[in-house]
């Protein structure tokens, strides 16, 4: 059935294309899957993530909505409760604030308040992240608003493979999943993807690089900067840095976090979200509690500065983490 499509799958795909493929394949696989959001149909989405879906599946399953994020999420819940598998889109993750109540109060509590006798198999896709001159309202990383809400799952893929595999898992999961896709990665990364269907399990982190001296725990946009930094300090300082990609932010893969912390004894958490209240605090707290005896140095965090993401290039650069800043943080912690 997906014959024509799967012919392409072995080819190189961008992060964006990987998401698009996952949507195509899941819609073909399960007729209860449908897509809803602003400009997702004829336009194919502001970033072209939903391109081609309208032609392939028709306007009953690819629905352009009015500008109403609360309705979009709420209607997703209503359809999901009756067995549909809606994939709803926030045009930018920033606007998720307008659908906030429906996510944290209607969707996240649904199974709980129905005594486990109702489910909400919905995915909320939200293009997040900075570094594209988006300023205050097109650069946000809102993940930590949701990682504190039981009943939700939260994912943030950093590779094209994960983008595709995690989206498929999210769609097949019976719980509400918030899927943050980093828009700076859309076209900046490309990978060969395997042919045919594959999934990436929710809740499992992945060691992207093994190391002995120090662990970086990260996800999403800063994974690549962290890997670059690890390569630089290996070459220039002879440091062996392990890099753990969380991939799923709720539930956290505590085992993987503690394993890497115990292995190297030094932890640097890196994320593009702001420092204060970012998920780094939670991770540092877990490490400082459960791996305390293994620590050879303070648990450090490198994140965006505690402000909004500003517009002028020198300001944005100053606020966001980048490879150089990570290199410096690694050196500092290694020298501790």
């Amino acid at each position, binding site marked *: 059935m997906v014959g024509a499509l799967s012919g392409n799958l072995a080819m190189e795909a961008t992060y964006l294309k990987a998401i698009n493929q996952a949507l195509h394949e899941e819609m073909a696989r399960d007729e*209860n899957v*449908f897509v809803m959001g602003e400009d997702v149909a004829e336009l194919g989405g502001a970033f072209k993530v939903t391109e081609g879906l309208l032609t392939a599946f028709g306007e*009953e*399953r690819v*629905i352009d*909505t*009015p500008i*109403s994020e*609360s*309705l979009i*999420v*709420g*209607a*997703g*819940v*209503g*359809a*999901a*409760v*009756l*067995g*549909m598998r*809606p994939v709803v889109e926030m045009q930018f993750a920033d606007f998720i604030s307008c659908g906030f*109540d*429906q996510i944290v*109060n*209607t969707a996240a*509590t649904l*199974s*709980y*308040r*129905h*005594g*486990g*006798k*109702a*489910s909400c*198999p919905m995915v909320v896709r939200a293009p997040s992240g900075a570094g594209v001159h988006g300023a205050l309202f097109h650069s946000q990383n809102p993940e930590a608003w949701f990682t504190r809400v*039981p*009943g939700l*799952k939260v994912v943030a893929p950093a590779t094209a493979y994960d983008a595709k595999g995690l989206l498929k898992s999210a769609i*097949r*999961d*019976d*719980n509400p999943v918030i899927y943050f896709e980093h828009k700076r990665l859309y076209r900046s990364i490309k990978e060969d993807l395997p042919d045919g269907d594959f999934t990436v399990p929710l809740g499992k982190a992945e060691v992207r690089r093994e190391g002995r001296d120090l662990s970086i725990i990260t996800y999403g946009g800063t994974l690549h900067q962290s890997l670059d930094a690890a390569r630089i300090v290996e070459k220039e300082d002879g440091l062996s840095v392990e890099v753990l990609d969380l991939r799923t932010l709720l539930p956290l893969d505590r085992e993987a976090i503690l394993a890497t912390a115990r292995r190297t004894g030094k932890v640097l958490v890196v994320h593009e979200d702001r420092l204060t209240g970012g998920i780094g605090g939670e991770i540092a707290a877990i490490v400082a509690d459960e791996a305390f005896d293994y620590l050879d140095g303070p648990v450090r965090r490198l994140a965006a500065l505690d402000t909004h993401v500003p517009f002028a290039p020198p300001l944005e650069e100053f606020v966001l983490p980048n490879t150089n800043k990570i290199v410096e943080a690694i050196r500092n912690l290694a020298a501790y």
Partner: protein
Amino acid sequence: MAEQDGSAAPAPVAARAAQDVELYYRMKLVRAFEERVSRLHRQNKILGGVYSGAGQEALVVGICAPLEPGDFTAPLHRDLGVFLMRGVDPGRLMAQLMGKETGLSRGKDSFLHGGDIAHGVFGSSSMLGSSLPVACGAALKFKIKRERHIAVAFFGEGASSRGDVHEAMNFAGVQKLPVLFVCENNRYAYSTPFEKQTSIENIADRAAAYGFRGHVCPGNDLLAVVGLAERVIDSIRAGGGPGLIECKTYRWRGHSEHDPALYRDQEELLEWESRDPIPLFEFYLDKRGHDINRLRAETDEKVNTTIQAAVDFADRSPYPEPEEALEDLYVGQGAAPGAPSAAVNGRRPIR
């Protein structure tokens, strides 16, 4: 589907009489349930917030009467009656209110935030208005799957001020969804009178802002509500797009059982107490030739038995075990429990 053969329809007059008796029973059941809940609250057997719908039974019964199994309903906090009308077991409902293991939410949530999807009742969050987008989503499913079902969302005139209500009605209008919005206009949102909530007379008039029809009806007149509901629901079911019914009614008790409602005019209360939907309907039954004294006695007995059984069941039911607090947050990886229409059931329509 193949035509049903054999079973002849009952003669119209007899059918009408049976339906009237059934409606009467339902309305009295809801009233008695409400009253019992208030009493149990005073006895500290029901904790937390209790929001009585006493006085508003006619509209709940009337709107739900024409609904069919598989239809979707999202009641508001004052709508115990919707649960009872959709066929939710009274014992489980009472257990829900008491926080017992056998309740709809297994003790997780209070009052009407627990639902029963198998009977087509969605347990709304507390956030007023938030169930209207949800009802649109249910209706969207019916539309996509070409099912002849409808979704019904109940909301107060107070909740009508929330943005979600607007977003939902607008979307319903654009998509021509099979959804019925029911505004229970009981003149107060907690202490705030209608005039301070909005500057128009009828919430129903807002339907025009979304391209569908609104209807105002005397919410304490069961006959009027049923008549209108049948008409509007038939049209929605036939693909006519959304509808809005505003039922003018009145909240007899305080906002919650904690509220003495001193902000209200006693004259107004008296006036509305005299618009009790039950005697009004008895008057009609009498005119229709029912032996009203006998019917009342029989109905009361049936009602009392049902409610006592419900209370006994709930009373006997245990509280959940403490550790269960961590259950039900997520459902497993299997098929969704609230799966497609087969699972969604409800009462046969009363007609």
